């Protein structure tokens, strides 16, 4: 009803549009910021109770919204430690003082101590795999440590399991007991021989000689020798003391050519200076074909430095060693809250828990509705320039209109004041 009221309403409209223009300015300024989430304004009318016949203008209330849960486009890069989340969730990071935050800005690089730090100076947190497969602490940041990759480390893994599959020639001649490889005599003969590389505790390559010898129909002896103990002459027999690592008997089913149900299916022996190695022989066959190795692998690796770091979609941080083998170092968790859009926004594209957002829940990527980690990609800001520009034009017009309201009020006041002369 009052002119003052109308003028104040115009001011509140101008303030509201100024707020909106501020968000537009921020959005446009951060349109190229990795992990930036667009802010927007929502307005609510403020009504002042008025009686019949007169109207008291109220005003407009501004509230700021953040489109935190809206995913931005991916920008692909050539760095494996550039990370993005495809789907819901945030990386857990901490600042220099150790306070945890959530973020989707994943441009991580190792710092001088090997910790992965993003462009805003936040350290990536993960669960260490040093003591076995990590598991999450579902409702808090406990157990998380900065992901640290020391490039100068040398590691070796002893061989523990292996697989060996081959066809043994069914029509091989039967070897007399005295000439069996397990007897380790100078006259030892085998029906078939292969060799495998395994690794001892210090990562030294140990060459294993595998002898398969037919002792009777459908019965084969398998003997494993340490190649380094072989006789230097033309035949490796007899091996030196301690050369025989293990021996066992395989029995085959004469109708199917597969291992008999009662037969042993693996051979376990100690690698010299190494761990106990179990070689799975369950897929061996004995058919009337020549000896042919079909599959052979043994785990473990030689001492080697870290060549590079690889991060999988499930958040596992692997170190790839120079010899091509891999080791799990960390697992990066993903955190989420019931209402991500209501997180408190802080400098550096990070978010912190607020009373409206709900409590943080932590899980592994790809599990339980969490997004997956994309290595070699960054999430662009979700700002759309065209939308911001149209908002800006709209705000500008709206601001002008509000100023006209204020000006009209002021003009009317002028008239009113000039009534008294």
């Amino acid at each position, binding site marked *: 009803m009052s002119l003052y009221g109308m003028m104040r309403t115009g001011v509140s409209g101008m303030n509201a549009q100024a707020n909106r223009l501020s968000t537009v300015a921020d959005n446009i300024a951060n349109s190229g910021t990795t992990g930036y989430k667009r802010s927007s304004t929502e307005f609510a009318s403020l009504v002042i109770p008025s009686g019949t016949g007169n109207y008291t203008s109220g005003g407009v209330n501004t509230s700021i919204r953040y489109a935190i849960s*809206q*995913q931005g*486009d991916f920008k692909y890069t050539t760095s494996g430690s550039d990370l993005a989340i495809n789907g819901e969730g945030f990386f857990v990071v901490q600042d220099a003082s150790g306070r945890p935050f959530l973020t989707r800005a994943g441009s991580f690089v190792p710092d001088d101590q090997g910790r992965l730090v993003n462009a805003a100076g936040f350290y990536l947190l993960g669960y260490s795999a040093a003591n076995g497969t990590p598991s999450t602490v579902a409702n808090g940041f406990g157990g998380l440590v900065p992901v640290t990759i020391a490039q100068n480390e040398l590691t070796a893994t002893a061989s523990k399991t292996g697989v060996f599959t081959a066809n043994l020639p069914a029509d091989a001649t039967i070897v007399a007991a005295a000439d069996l490889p397990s007897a380790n005599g100078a006259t030892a003969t085998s029906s078939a021989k292969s060799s495998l590389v395994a690794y001892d505790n210090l990562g030294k390559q140990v060459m294993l*000689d595998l002898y398969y010898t037919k002792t009777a129909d459908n019965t084969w002896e398998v003997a494993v020798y340490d190649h380094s103990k072989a006789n230097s002459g033309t035949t490796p027999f007899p091996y030196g003391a301690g050369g025989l690592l293990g021996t066992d008997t395989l029995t085959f089913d004469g109708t199917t050519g597969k291992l008999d149900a009662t037969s042993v299916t693996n051979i376990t022996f100690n690698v010299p200076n190494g761990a106990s190695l179990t070689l799975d022989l369950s897929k061996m066959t004995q058919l009337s074909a*020549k000896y042919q190795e079909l599959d052979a692998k043994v785990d473990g690796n030689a001492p080697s430095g870290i060549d590079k770091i690889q991060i999988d979609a499930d958040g596992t941080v692997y170190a*790839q060693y120079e010899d091509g083998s891999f080791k799990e170092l960390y697992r990066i968790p993903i955190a989420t809250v019931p209402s991500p859009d209501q997180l408190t926004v802080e400098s550096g594209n990070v978010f912190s828990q607020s009373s409206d957002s709900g409590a943080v829940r932590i899980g592994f990527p790809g599990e339980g509705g969490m997004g997956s980690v994309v290595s070699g990609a960054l999430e662009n800001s979700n700002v759309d320039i065209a939308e911001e520009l149209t908002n800006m034009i709209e705000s500008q017009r709206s601001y002008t209109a509000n100023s006209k309201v204020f000006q009209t009020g002021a003009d009317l006041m002028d008239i009113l004041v000039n009534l008294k002369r």
Partner: protein
Amino acid sequence: MSSLTTALAIAQSALRTTGKQTSIVSRNISEAQNPDYTRRIAAVSSTAPGARSISVQRAVDALLFKNNLNAQSAFQAQQTLYDGMERLGLAVNGVENVSSAATMLGKLQEALQTYSSAPSNRNLGQNAVEAARDLVRSLNDGTNAIQSFRGDMDSQIGIAVNQLNDLLGQFKDANTEIVKGTHSGSDVSDALDRRDALLKQISSLVSVSTFTRTDNDMVIMTADGATLFETVPRSVTFNPNAIYSATTSGNAVYVDGVPLAAGAGGNTNAGGKIAGLLQLRDEVGGTMQSQLDEIARGLITAFAETDPSGTLAPQAGLFTWSGGPAIPASGTLVSGLAGTISLNAAFDSAAGGDPSLLRDGGANGVAYKHNTTGAASYSDLLFSYSKNLDAPMAFDPAASNGTTLSLSSFSTNAISWFEGMRSNASTAADAKAALATQTAESLSNLTGVNVDTEMSMLLDLENAYEASARIIQTINDMLRALLDAVR
């Protein structure tokens, strides 16, 4: 989210994708003449809006590649065998077999017949002894030629084994690179090409079979199942012999402690050059030597002097040997006899002997003299020698040339055996060469670069690039229109 910004990002990534595809096409064209290069295919996949990733794939046909490897190694073995037999045949038997033992034996028979028709003619006796001398020379030279050939093969095996070890070393480098690259998802096409090329070279030396483990880690075995490469190369060992004699047996080639089998037969079952060389050294060279040895033994036996009264044991006559004057045991191979057989000095006028002993007998003493009366026209003994050459006698089965037949048939059979094997080898070499060429060609058709396809691909890419650029231009115009609205 779809907006102009997204559209711009998509167009940008399309430009990047097209650029990458173009670089792959240009690489294909530049390597069009490289037989070991496999065509790269740019596989494009959409990962998220505005993001496409390119992975480089190689055009592979594992089965055909395996066939090609087998064909190549069979061809290499066959060609090695054929070339070696050509050389050996020429060295031992001469052009058209003129210097072969069979030809020389025929000449000796002729000379004997002529002499027996005129036993009083001393010159004819001298001729027969000269023919015998030529035969001895042919056997001695043949032995030398075979043994120096075996020595040659032995040193070639040594060279091939060194080559193989070297190739396996290079294979390790390529394989390690592939395993690392495959696990980290980087492009390992070049290393794969290199590894395939190395595998081709390895299979030309030994016949191989392979299988691939996780991360493209390849394991190579010989066709017999011995491990050649698994994580690290296995050592292939061979101890060469510098000098070969008929009694020297060559050393085997050991792959990871397992001896490598030599090939057998004219249409050899061997795969790879090394098996072919082993076959030449042992089977071909060895059998040929035993045949010459058996011919030499047959000659000593056929020309042995007998006691007319039958009490004394026969003793070496026109031909003698290191074990003379005793006669070598019947039907048993004496290794190296062809190298030690010699003309008995008692018959050799050049060494002060008397060729007429051939007519009369008695080189081993009066007890062995048949022409006791000294008749100038005595020809019984000469006839008996001729008869001996055509009478069946026992031969050692080790010479693989029949066990009971006449010496002259044995000597001609030896030639037929060799020629038969050589002609088999020649036919098989042609067939295997054709197969090797054909598989190589089909492999190249499937995995090689076809410049026409690449050029048409290039046109497509050009169009796609222009379209993307047009989109960017249009978006730019639209944004400009919007900015113009802000005043």
